[in-house]
């Protein structure tokens, strides 16, 4: 099972502003809404919704009825780029330069849709507003963890709207957060090359893993930044500058180093596999033993974000997005089914 509300992330694509005024940005983030499948993509300041698939009864072969692959109603969601997206049953959350906004899924497709609320985490100086690099939602207790650009991990309670925790410890910006299922703990990985485990009951850092100090996985020529992080029960996979590695959390030791040459940007646990994507137009399917089960070609030149549909055991849907205006959709992890593009 995959943690929390999964999301995929894309890079904004530079486009020349032609006379025809095609949309400037390509997808940045795709996220699934839990029950209804809607892919939501954020771009440079705008959110586009691609039409959801109706939950058609799959035919005998388990094939999907192809949905309309067009993006709909780009509206300017933020003044700056949208860095992260997360989703609950009712809400879509988007994180941007120093603010997080909530949108109602029901109204999202309509014209003139306004956000439900906006929260700005307190920032120290007005000169530099920290961005929100990652969002993770705890569906059960209704709070969301924010990975901030100023090095703080914050927790926002969705019911009260207040920032309940501010966890400081990272020396540089925090790239990604991950939530542990059973325990009220948050993992965060950052630019300073560390993965820290926080306990929300005490509000203190419980464990610190300095990934770049381990010989097996560190790659100093690429850097020490940690970009992707995923956790399942006692295990954690993280990577970025250092190689993608599987860690055992309780002991804090790396167990398997996956031999992927390029830095990885996003990784997920799925059944007994680890899915990861990064620089290079391929989606990697890795077994926990360290073998590369498959390398699936994808349209974008580099992958930024992978997103699995959270709860449907019989219909497997994975979307990936990256350095391209197209989002790839997989119904079978072995090959790409089709792509969504913006009109």
């Amino acid at each position: 099972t995959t943690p929390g509300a999964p999301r995929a992330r894309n890079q904004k694509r530079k486009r020349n502003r032609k006379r025809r005024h095609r949309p400037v940005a390509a997808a940045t983030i795709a996220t699934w809404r839990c029950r209804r499948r809607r892919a939501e993509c954020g771009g440079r300041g705008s959110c586009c919704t691609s039409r959801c698939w109706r939950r058609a009864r799959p035919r005998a072969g388990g094939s999907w009825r192809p949905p309309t692959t067009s993006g709909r109603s780009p509206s300017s969601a933020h003044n700056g780029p949208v860095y992260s997206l997360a989703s609950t049953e009712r809400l879509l959350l988007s994180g941007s330069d120093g603010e997080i906004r909530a949108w109602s899924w029901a109204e999202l497709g309509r014209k003139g849709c306004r956000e439900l609320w906006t929260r700005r985490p307190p920032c120290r100086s007005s000169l530099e507003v920290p961005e929100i690099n990652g969002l993770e939602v705890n569906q059960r207790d209704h709070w969301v963890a924010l990975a901030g650009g100023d090095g703080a991990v914050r927790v926002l309670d969705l019911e009260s709207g207040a920032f309940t925790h501010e966890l400081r410890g990272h020396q540089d910006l925090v790239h990604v957060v991950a939530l542990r299922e059973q325990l009220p703990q948050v993992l965060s990985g950052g630019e300073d090359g560390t993965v820290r485990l926080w306990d929300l009951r005490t509000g203190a850092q419980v464990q610190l893993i300095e990934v770049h100090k381990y010989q097996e996985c560190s790659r100093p020529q690429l850097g020490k930044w940690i970009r992707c992080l995923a956790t399942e029960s006692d295990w954690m996979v993280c990577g970025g500058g250092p190689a993608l590695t599987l860690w055992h959390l309780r002991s804090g030791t790396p167990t398997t180093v996956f031999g992927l040459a390029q830095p990885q940007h996003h990784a997920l646990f799925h059944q007994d596999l680890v899915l990861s994507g990064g620089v290079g137009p391929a989606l990697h399917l890795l077994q926990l033993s360290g073998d590369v089960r498959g390398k699936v070609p994808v349209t974008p030149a580099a992958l930024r974000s992978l997103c699995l549909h959270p709860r449907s055991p019989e219909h497997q849907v994975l979307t990936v997005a990256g350095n391209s205006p197209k989002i790839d959709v997989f119904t079978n992890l072995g090959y790409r089914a089709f792509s969504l593009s913006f009109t």
Partner: protein
Amino acid sequence: MSSESSKKRKPKVIRTDGAPAEGKRGKGDTDQDVRYYSEESEVDLRDPIKDYELYRETCQELQRLMAEIQELKSRGIKENASEIDERRVQSCVHFMTLKKLNRLAHIRLKKGRDQTHEAKQKVDAYHLQLQNLLYEVMHLQKEITKCLEFKSKHEEIELVSLEEFYKEAPPEISRPAITLTEPHQQTLARLDWELEQRKRLAEKYKECLTSKEKILKEIEVKKEYLSSLQPRLNSIMQASLPVQEYLFMPFDQAHKQYETARHLPPPLYVLFVQASAYGQACDKKLVVAIEGSVEEAKALYKPPEDSQAVLPPQKRRRPTLGVQLDDKRKEMLKRHPLSVTLDLKCKDDNVLHLTFHYLMNLNVMTVKAKVTTAMEMTTAISAGDLLSPDSLLNCLYPGDHGRKTPNPANQFQFDKVGILTLSDYVTELGHPYVWVQKLGGLHFPKDQPQHTVAADNSLSASHMELTVKLLRSRLQSRLALHKQFASLEHGVVPVSSECQQLFPTKIVSRLVKWTAIPYEDYAELPYTKDVIEAGLAEDTHLYYMALIERGTAKLQAAVVLNPGYSTLPPVFSLCLNWKGERNSSNDDNIRAMESEVNVYYKELWGPKPGYQLLTNQLQRLCMVLDVYLETEPHDPSVEGPKEFPQEKMCLRLVRGPLRLKPFKFNYPQGFFSHR
């Protein structure tokens, strides 16, 4: 005997008494009128019933006597002769009585009839009177209805309304005291007023007619006067020619030009007229002239009378098929002998010469361009194409490349003579751009060919101003680029003083090479695929390669320049060679650098015409390369200090999930931040 006479005379009504019965036969009919019967007076006195009784008795007596006679006669004639005589005499008396009674009855009857007749007559007379009277009544009723329905003519006249009448009519006509009470008087008064008004208006009408006649006459007189003026003016003009020349006012020259213009074909004429009008009204630096031979133009319209030359008497060889086809082609592509030249002068004294020709059989106009610069320009090698007449006016309007003929009907004509496309002939004929056709008022619908497309003045007028502006800006941008290229080839990026604030004072990266490359080379580069796929690089565009260096790092930038520079920005594709090849597909920061020059070009336009866009973009590239190299994290595995020490002031080195470097320069503080 008397009974026989009474039987004979039964029809005669008027009878007198029985005494003069014998005299009846002798008298005859002449006395009938005078005869008067005494019974006529007795009849009133005697009772008819008694007469009837008498008659019955008499009849009975007679019957008795006859019976006795009978009886006597049957007994024997001798004895009873005296009794029979006696009885005979008695029966004669009885017969006399009967006669009298008969007379009486007849007279009674006659009297009765007379009375009835009289009464009937009276009744008839009354009846007749009644009929007469009824008839008269009906007649009178009809008359009455007719009278009642009678519409007097006065009701057909439209009268003014009552209020107006009382308002306007003078009191002696309207007499409100009387007329308000009596409607008849009121109507009369209104009619009076109406009559008076109409009389007045009729008079006025007559007056107006007379004045109109007068004015018409005056107009006639003045017209004659004016028409007599024309020959005098001509003579004055002739006389003023030497004065004009002395004062340098070439009105006559303009006049001559108009004369020549009459021989122009319609599209060229429209262009000439609109251009001169525009030049006089809005743009003093636009000069229009007509060149070519007027005699040839005149000859075009003359029927070929003696032009059929006398053929040589020897054997005539038919020209070969190829030569025939060639001749046909030449004929099809023939130009009109006259052409219109437009000279656009710019502020810095550079002139753009445009010559417009008209292809008669194809009904299209073409243009040839030439630039003369105020001062001698050092031609940079890369700038060779910028001002070449072939490509100078390319894509003045988007998509207008001038390689295809804009008239769809020409395709059929071409097929007949085997011409593939007009682009083979553009070097000698000129370019048939769509804006040229519009200036000449020729409007070709997109798909279907129309047989006659006539030159339209309004089309030309609506396009003139915009086209002239575009032409000027095109010339100036090209000249500006020309100058910039000359400087770029020497490795100096010229940045004007207004744009200095976009860049920090110290930029270490330098432009070392600037060359023009052909389109095929550009298409082969691996990092330009996205631009080509997006449709931003076509073969009408100009392509260049710039090389920026700092230390061991070499940045190659492939530039595609749209002919509509600088409204349409050039697009850069970057590839950095430093510790490996990095381009936009594998390095987000290179992508961010590309977006700095391609997407945020509006900041780099500079002062108003914006011709400095390219050089500012190049300068910005140098600047972001500096930032990129200096903010690279130090690799601890490599010994020695960083090759590029950080000299730029940055707030944060890494931001966002993409880990971008700070490329945005803030003026005047002078530090770099993220967008």
